[in-house]
């Protein structure tokens, strides 16, 4: 009934089994196994109660050297060097600073060159490596699985547990393979691929499972694309998503601040090359997709599975199979202010948001800027771009992307989670409609009454120019 088997290692040679097995500290009778955690990422919003609990119990952080903190969820993206005007956000940041100082945890605070969205900075610093276990009090920790790490989100009680013990109790999830064969058509991105997968298996299709993404279309993705895919594993309900490391992974990691160096690099490579699912291994569930059948995707509803291709239209709730699904679809249309049958290209937007742990990396900004070069944002559309980290911002500016965005009429902001979850004041007004490169189109996610449509960075940029949902290809004729 939804959750994985309670007992026993079932090591049959899958990537997931290999990473799981090497982190087993203890498998006590009648208790879930104890798993060692190699990297614990911490941010200001889900940690204050954990540090408080730790201190009330008279405990300390067991491995501050395996714990890394940053500020991302409620940091301002305008004037980040000025005073924090939101007193509650200021209190959370001040608590994090004090907690990190008290316990010797490395912190990349607002203003630091390495500050940024926690799932952007981990890989950027080389802290996320193949075969590791990575946790964070944030569901999008699944992002780090792009490196062949086992990475998953945890709650605050578990954050406290990891701080105190550097371990977690985990019932072993089941394993699922999603194989994407063939080649992605031109104009179809990693975001379209993962939204297509979620539409196929549903928002709970991965519940109780760790997904391994496989196949030629996955192999052909760069690390940014792989992170986008693994990031949204949680939107299919999966515990984690993983991609076996390969030369693309190793090329990304080589030379990064925390990557192994010299002889260690060679030792690490030998180890990492073993992190593949063995020939003939089987999965608890297997799903196969043909990349050639995928098209650019846009969501129409209030969960990430409610999507159609850009060529499609808002569906008619009556066409859904069960009355529960019909009611859910009708409820979504009512919230979104949409009518069945409206072509997606005919839906206008008020706001375009480019950023987040899903699509806030340099490659994402390049893709969007490539569409915007020489073009202008449509009248009446507010468009903002929020780099995923201070370093992404710096690198984007070094290659002039900020000028492309600004010339087109985008606001060029500082790093943070921003409008993905709207904690920092970057929100939609009630009834406003966005094209957003983030990960969740839940009711009110980007502000009370706000209406979110999830898209890729390229489609977000094209939509900003056209004023309604569009692909970059659509703009060619209109130039």
């Amino acid at each position, binding site marked *: *009934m*939804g959750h994985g088997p*309670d007992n026993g290692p079932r090591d049959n040679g899958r990537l997931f089994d290999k990473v799981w097995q090497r982190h087993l*500290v203890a498998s006590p009778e009648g*208790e*879930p196994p104890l798993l*060692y955690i*190699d*990297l614990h990422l911490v941010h200001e*919003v*889900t940690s*204050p*109660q954990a540090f*408080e609990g730790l201190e009330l119990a008279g*405990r300390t952080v067991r491995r501050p*050297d*395996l714990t890394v903190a940053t500020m991302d*969820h*409620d940091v301002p993206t305008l004037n980040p060097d000025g005073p924090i005007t939101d007193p*509650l956000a200021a209190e*959370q940041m001040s608590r994090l600073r004090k907690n990190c100082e008290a316990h010797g945890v*490395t912190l990349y605070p607002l203003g630091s060159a390495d500050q940024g969205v926690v799932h952007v900075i981990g890989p950027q610093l*080389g*802290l996320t490596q193949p075969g*590791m276990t990575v946790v964070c009090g*944030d569901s999008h920790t699944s992002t780090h699985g792009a490196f062949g790490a086992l990475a998953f*989100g945890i*709650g*605050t*009680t*578990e954050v*406290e*547990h990891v701080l*105190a*013990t550097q*371990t977690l*109790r985990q019932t072993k*999830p089941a394993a699922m393979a999603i194989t994407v064969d063939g080649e992605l058509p031109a104009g179809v991105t990693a975001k379209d691929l993962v939204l297509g997968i979620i539409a196929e298996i549903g*928002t*709970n299709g991965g*519940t*109780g499972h760790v997904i391994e993404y496989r196949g030629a279309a996955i192999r052909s993705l760069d690390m940014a694309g792989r992170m986008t895919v693994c990031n949204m594993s949680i939107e299919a*309900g999966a*515990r984690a998503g993983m991609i076996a490391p390969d030369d693309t992974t190793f090329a990304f990691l080589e030379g990064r601040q*925390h990557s*192994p160096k*010299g002889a*260690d*690099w060679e*030792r*690490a490579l030998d*180890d990492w090359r073993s992190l593949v699912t063995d020939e003939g291994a089987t999965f608890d569930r297997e799903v196969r997709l043909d990349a050639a059948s995928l098209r650019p995707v846009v969501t129409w509803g209030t969960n990430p599975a409610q999507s159609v291709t850009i060529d499609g239209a808002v569906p008619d709730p009556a066409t859904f199979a069960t009355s529960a699904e019909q009611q*859910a679809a009708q409820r979504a249309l009512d919230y979104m202010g949409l009518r069945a049958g409206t072509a997606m290209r005919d839906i206008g937007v008020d706001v375009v948001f480019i950023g987040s742990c899903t699509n806030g990396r340099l490659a994402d900004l390049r893709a969007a800027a490539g569409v915007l070069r020489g073009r202008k944002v449509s009248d009446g559309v507010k468009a903002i771009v929020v780099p995923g980290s201070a370093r992404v911002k710096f690198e984007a500016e070094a290659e002039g992307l900020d000028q492309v965005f600004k010339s087109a009429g985008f606001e060029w902001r500082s790093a943070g989670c921003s409008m993905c*979850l709207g*904690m920092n004041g970057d929100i939609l007004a009630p009834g406003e409609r966005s094209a957003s490169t983030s990960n*969740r189109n*839940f*009711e*009110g*996610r980007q502000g009370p009454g706000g209406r979110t449509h999830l898209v890729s960075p390229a489609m977000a940029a094209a939509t900003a120019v056209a004023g309604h949902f569009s692909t970059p290809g659509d703009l060619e004729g209109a130039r």
Partner: protein
Amino acid sequence: MRAVHKVQGRAVVLDRPNVDTDQIIPAAWLKRVERTGFGPGLFSAWRTDPEFVLNQPGADEAKILIAGPNFGCGSSREHAVWALQDFGFDAVISPSFADIFRGNSIGAGLVTAETDEQTVAALGATLAADPAVTVVLDVAERTITVPSTGLSFDFALPDYARWRLLEGMDDVGITLRHADEIAAFEAQRPDWLPSSGPRTPAMT
């Protein structure tokens, strides 16, 4: 965490699938640095509708929430569990729960009773007939009963989760019994694994 043996009281039905944690507690509420005080934020967007189930007479006394499948999907925010508890709920009954929400609930002492769609529908019909009826959820027996009508159902809850709820055990305390094994594990970790602290120079 306090022990939970039995949950007994009124129940309310939230007949929606895929209720995500952004609905349970919107992000604006996540700025608190305490574990308490989240009750007023519970389903705050939906509570603006006078017809919403939590706005009905007696709902403020409810101990059990009966919800559609995939309850608690989305964000890992444990604040969702704290909000349900702060409002007064001690248990949620659903055909399925999202993984992180289930883990957070057990850790904080909120019972996640997984049952089938038919049971949820039968409970819904019973509550439609009498919204004030007492529902009893027994953690040790893993049963849901309605004493006044004689209805009785089983629910699923993993053994370890059941044990933790019954004992009210501090999970960190249980784990620290394995401190020697943790230390032994650490002693054999490869030294090239990343660390934010001072790195031991590689052996040459």
